[in-house]
């Protein structure tokens, strides 16, 4: 369980998150949506202790963020940040292999190698395994980073806009994979999405942020409405219903 308690965050006097409280239970996909600059990435990086917490309290499975050892948390929670710049000389296999580092600390066991192969296969990277990152297309790179977080094999997975640059097949493939993780293995996936349709189709719960506040929270069918799009995103797109699911007409 991720418990976020009265978290406020400001940068240079500018409030970014205002009194955010959320409970994310174990198992399932939670989609975090909201307009640009709403504070989604900031919230994820606070949960993953990539930025120091200013006020409030966050716990992940009872581990208090800011107090728990970094290597313990690395076996509990993995994050895919929105912006990554990594030395390009790495091969895809090396990058994905780093996902196992929290377990083997530099000395991979045969099981670790098996996991890496599985992660490569899961994101259709087998053919690209030996390629250097800087020779890949944007979507291929993105898939490699997702595979790395996947290989970390943690109970909690935070993904910041993983569908960036992915084509429709890769996007659906990734979302199916995440749904399997959530349904079959009881993993918890928190995922930032901009495409409300993907959120509505795959998430068990949608949480919307706007100007650093939680403005909507619930099952996709209940949350995604015309009024929701108008108040949260200030857009007059309408919502249709297809196969019992809300669908935004863009």
């Amino acid at each position: 369980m991720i418990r976020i308690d009265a978290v406020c965050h400001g940068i240079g006097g500018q409030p970014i998150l205002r009194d955010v409280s959320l409970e994310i239970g174990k198992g399932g996909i939670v989609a975090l949506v909201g307009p640009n600059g709403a504070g989604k990435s900031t919230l994820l990086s606070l949960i993953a202790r990539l930025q120091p917490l200013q006020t409030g309290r966050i716990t992940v499975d009872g581990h208090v963020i800011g107090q728990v050892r970094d290597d313990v948390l690395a076996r509990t929670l993995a994050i895919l940040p929105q912006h990554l710049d990594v030395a390009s000389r790495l091969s895809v296999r090396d990058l994905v292999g780093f996902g196992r580092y929290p377990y083997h600390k530099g000395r991979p066991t045969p099981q670790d190698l098996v996991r890496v192969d599985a992660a490569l296969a899961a994101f259709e990277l087998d053919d690209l395994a030996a390629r250097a990152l800087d020779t890949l297309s944007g979507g291929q790179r993105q898939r490699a980073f997702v595979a790395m977080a996947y290989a970390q094999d943690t109970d909690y997975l935070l993904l910041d806009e993983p569908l960036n640059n992915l084509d429709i097949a890769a996007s659906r493939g990734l979302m199916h994979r995440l749904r399997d993780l959530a349904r079959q293995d009881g993993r918890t996936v928190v995922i930032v999405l901009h495409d409300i349709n993907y959120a509505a189709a795959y998430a068990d719960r949608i949480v919307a942020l706007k100007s650093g506040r939680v403005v909507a929270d619930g099952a996709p069918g209940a949350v995604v409405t015309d009024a929701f799009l108008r108040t949260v995103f200030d857009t007059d797109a309408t919502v249709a219903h297809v196969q019992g699911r809300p669908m935004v007409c863009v």
Partner: protein
Amino acid sequence: MRLRLVGLSAVLGLCMLGYLVIGARGDWGFVLAFRGQKLLALLLVGVAIAWSTLIFQTLTGNRILTPAIMGFDALYMLGLGLLIWVLGVPAYLAIPPQVMMLGNVALLCLGALGLFGLVLRANGRDLMRLLLTGVVLSVLIRSLTGFLMRVIDPNEYAVLQGAAFARFSNVDPDLLTIAGGITAICGIAIWRMRHRLDVIGLGPDLALSLGEPGPRSRRAVLLLVSLLVAVSTALVGPVTFLGLLVTNLTYLLFPTHRHAVLLPATGLVAGIVLIGGQGLLEHVMGLTTPLSVVIEAVGGLSFLVLLLRMLR
């Protein structure tokens, strides 16, 4: 890669052998002892500069900045100047050089952790800002040292001046043991960190999410860098571009991110450049140009080339 490492070791072995025996005349025992000492010093300096540069570049995530370009050795000279200024030359010369060096090392570690810790924290891995801050800092430190040189009296000036120029040919033998000790300790610490360094090279966010605490590893790396820079500066004076030359040669020869390979490789390349170069100059060509001048010229040029390539 393993083959290349073996090949490099063989080349280094040849260089060492050549350095010891080429052009040797007279009493062999004396020649070998004398040259052996210098060889050891060159090896120490080579490893210290190579490893400090490599781990600094891993920490900052680029291949252009080196501790020397950021002004680490300038900071060492400033500390030395301050000591001479505060103590006066007679007291300075009365203190055993080993004690002096330890004091200097401590000063540098404090200064570097404070100053460069702050710079790195403020600029992260933004190369351009780091480069600018580093260059400005090192100019500032160098001018402070220059200012100090002007206000102290001529005797003190001469002592400081003597320490301020790179010299590979006459190394202070008194310092060898202590320098060797510090290098060995740092070397062991760095070798044990080799897997962590691989992860640190991924950048602060990924490293942290894989469980490598950012501030702690930054402090550890900076401390090791300061110790090694202090060792090499105390032994041969400031050398600006050797580290850059050696690491980039290594990156060319060994296209990998793994420090288990890069560490031995840079050490070997540094040894070959220093010992081979010094042997050539000293024993084959008869020492007309100091090696430091050659290295700074070649290293400086490659710095320019790298910068231009990066800006393109």
